[in-house]
Each structure stands twice: as C-alpha cells, then as structure tokens.
C-alpha cells in the first residue's frame, strides 16, 4: 500500500460541511417561510431567483472575462503560460481550460466557468511580471484546483438561498407599494416575508464568505500538492498580498464584483474584516502551506 502524503485535515472538512449544511438549511427555511407567508407569489419568486443563480453560473466565464476586460490567448502568443498549464493539467488529469490575459497592473489571477470543460483561467499582466515562473506555476495550480473542485458551481448553489431571499425582499416591497395587500393578513404576510428574507440574506452573506475562505484553503492545499512546492505558493502569496496592500482602495472598486474568484482579495475591509473577507488571512494560508511542506519532507514512515 503506497503511503499518502496528504495532510489529515478533518477539521476543515467538518467546518466546511457544517457551513454547507447550514446554507442548505437556510434555503429550506426560506422556501417554507415563503410558502407560508406569500403562497400566491412564492413559486414565481423561487423560480426567478433560482433562474438568476443558474444564469449567473452558466455565463460565469463570459461575465468574468468581460468584467476583467480579459481576452483569450493562444499557445502561439503565450507559449510559456500554456506550457505550464498543459503540464499541470496532465499531472492533475483534468481537461485543459482556456487561457486568458487581463491587461492590468494588479497582480492577480482567477478561474471561472460552469464546468471543468468550459473553464477559463486568467492572469493579469501584472502577476506575470512580478512572479518567477515557479511562483506563477503555483498560482496557476491554485486556480486549476478551483476549477477541479467546481468552486463556481459550489458557490452558486450556496448563494442561491441569498439570491432567492433578495428576490423575495424585492417581491415583498413590490407587494407593499402596489397595494396588493389591503387586507390585514396580506400586510402581515408582506412584512413577515420582508423580515425573514432580510434575516436569511444577512446570515447567508456571512456563511457564504466563510465557505469562500474554506474553499480557498482547499485550493491552496490541492495546488501545493500538485506542484509539490508549497513554498513557491507561499512566496507568491506574500508577494501578491504585499502588493495588494499598497494599492489605494479607491482604485480597486471596479474589480470588487470579481473578488470571489481572485487568488488574493483586491479589497481590504476595515470593519468586520475577518468575518466578511472572501479569502483567509495570509497567516492562515501560510500556516497550512507550512504543514504541507513538513508532510512532504517527512522521511520516516
């Protein structure tokens, strides 16, 4: 029996499963609440909300590329970049995603797409200038792990409760404004729906961010095992995070919507930072990489 060098990380798996379970519970609570309070509209609101989630997931590659003003590049234009991704995909046994470039100085990389077959991995010109080939490979391995773990799908499913709750809040407002609820029960139903949807939206917001941080740690872990060089990812993260911190926040607003798929967050929140950030702290990520490093270097069985 060959030995395994994967770090045992039951804690992360348990925490992540709990968050996903809670998000599922929220969704069920929302549906039940809606059926009870707004039986006439519940079905339509639910269908529209889920429809939006599906549409976002289905078009994630195009939307992200457009938002980042990225364009696809061929192996002839960027042979080194394609070469690295070719080899990583062969080692990870996954289909090769399309490769994109975004011309901006912010050093960052992202991967999106509805499935591994329709994925796109994109790097900024800034990151290619700042990182050594080894570090760039580590970052690409992290992004390919997002693709392999189907993180766009996971996050969309996880976000659907929040999206439906948002739709419901809109629907309740609509109902209130256009006087569909002249009767007393109707008014209670509308206000109740508004309160429930806002509460669910708030809870799902924090849970989503938590889940996003866990998925980042998973991608770090898988990426480090793929390249067998956790230290390269560590130095890349340090370089990128250090760079990111020096950029004034005002300049980064345009990229805010893309944060969930970046390798390092492009904003630094001031309040509630640890609760609402999409990425784990640098310390947390480096700590995990150090553990992998130790496991890879362990000689005794």
């Amino acid at each position: 029996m060959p030995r395994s060098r994967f770090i045992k990380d039951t804690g992360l798996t348990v925490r992540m499963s709990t968050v996903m379970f809670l998000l599922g519970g929220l969704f069920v609570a929302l549906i039940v609440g809606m059926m009870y309070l707004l039986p006439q509209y519940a079905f339509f609101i639910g269908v529209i909300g889920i429809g939006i989630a599906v549409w976002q997931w289905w078009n994630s590659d195009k939307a992200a590329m457009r938002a980042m003003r990225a364009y696809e590049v061929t192996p002839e234009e960027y042979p080194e970049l394609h070469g690295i991704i070719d080899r990583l995909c062969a080692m990870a046994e996954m289909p090769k995603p399309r490769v994109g470039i975004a011309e901006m100085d912010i050093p960052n990389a992202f991967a999106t797409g509805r499935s591994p077959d329709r994925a796109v991995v994109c790097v900024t010109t800034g990151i290619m200038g700042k990182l050594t080939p080894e570090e760039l490979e580590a970052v690409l391995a992290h992004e390919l792990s997002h693709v392999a773990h189907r993180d766009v799908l996971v996050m969309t499913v996880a976000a659907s409760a929040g999206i439906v709750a948002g739709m419901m809040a809109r629907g309740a407002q609509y109902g209130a404004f256009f006087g569909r609820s002249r009767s007393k029960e109707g008014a209670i139903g509308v206000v109740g729906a508004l309160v429930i949807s806002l509460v669910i939206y708030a809870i799902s917001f924090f849970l989503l961010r938590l889940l996003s941080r866990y998925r980042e740690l998973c991608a770090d872990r898988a990426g480090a095992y793929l390249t067998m060089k956790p230290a390269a990812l560590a130095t890349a993260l340090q370089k990128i995070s250090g760079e990111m911190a020096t950029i004034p926040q005002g300049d980064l607003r345009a990229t805010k919507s893309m944060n969930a798929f970046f390798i390092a967050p492009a904003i630094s929140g001031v309040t509630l930072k640890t609760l609402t950030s999409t990425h784990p702290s640098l310390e947390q990520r480096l700590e995990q990489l150090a553990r992998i490093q130790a496991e890879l270097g362990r000689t005794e069985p």
Partner: protein
Amino acid sequence: MGLWETLRGRRTTSGPNLDALFLVPSAAVTLQTGIGLEPAGTGSVCFRAAEGAAFRQMQSEVVELLNADPEAPDVRSSTDDYGFTWLTVARDDTTDVAGICTDLHAVNTALEEQGFGSGLLCTLVPFGDAGGRRAGLVYLYRRGTFYPFAPKGPQQRDNLLEIQVRDALAAELPIETDLQRWLAVWGAPGL
C-alpha cells in the same frame, strides 16, 4: 470527480496500472519492423521533485539501486525549463527495451510508494532511425495511456509520423484517444 469529493474540495486520485509499461518491448518490435524506428537505448521518467529531505533521500536510493546493475550505464538526472526532473536510464545494448522498461517501472513504483505519485508526469521511451526521424512513446501517468511524440526541428511536430506510430501500435498499447492530451515534451532527453 464525485459529488463527495467536490463537496470536500479534495481529490483522491489513484495511480494507473504501471504494468502497461511492460507492453513497450513488443511495441518496439512492431515499430522496428513496421515503420523502421529503432529503440534509442534509453528511457526516462519525468516527475515533479518535491521539496524536502524525503524526496531527495528517495531519489538517491532509486538512483543507487539502478546504478548497482553492472550491465547498465549510470542513471542521469536533468531538470527542464518547466521545473520537472527527468531521470534517464540507459542500456549499452540498445535492443534491450525490456531491461529499460523494468528500470522505468522501478522508478515509477518507488515514487508511488513514497507518496509522490501525484508528482509523476510521464514516462518516455525514445526511438529513432538513421534518417534522423525521431519519435518517443510517452506514457501519461495519470491517464495510463500512451501517445507518440515526434519532434521535427525546434517547436515543430511531425504529425504524420505520430499518426503512423499510433496506427501501428493501436492493437498493442492503450493509445490516448483524445488528441488534445498529446502533450509536447520539447527537449526531452533522448529525442
């Protein structure tokens, strides 16, 4: 990748059947009689060397083991532009493909057993003829399949020869059917 693995964000991949490497000697005979390509007398394993003492120790043990064979020249190790390590084994008697494949199998197995199987990229057995044609049989570790790679000048492939090799060996080796996976390995040792 199953639902459970997706939810956990962790992939557990199992190694393929390395015994497929022992099919290469008979394929070499077919290549020689059918297309006129002769074995170059070498073979190499391409892998990603992990950081740390464990990997260095394992690699030196494997090299020591292979060098202990008095009939075989010493194992050579080289690093390519992408940061992958190539361990090249050789035989003075170039027709001894079976001996080369045994060595290649030993290298692959040693990496697997020490938990570094995920770092294995491919195994290459090069062939060539007097006219300067070159072709390598590449064994993709993750897929467990073979494909031909025939370089022609810098950064150009001889696709015609590759298809010829594929058709000649289709009955003997598990050939990679997805042409997208026929990864070029420029500058590989022996090609």
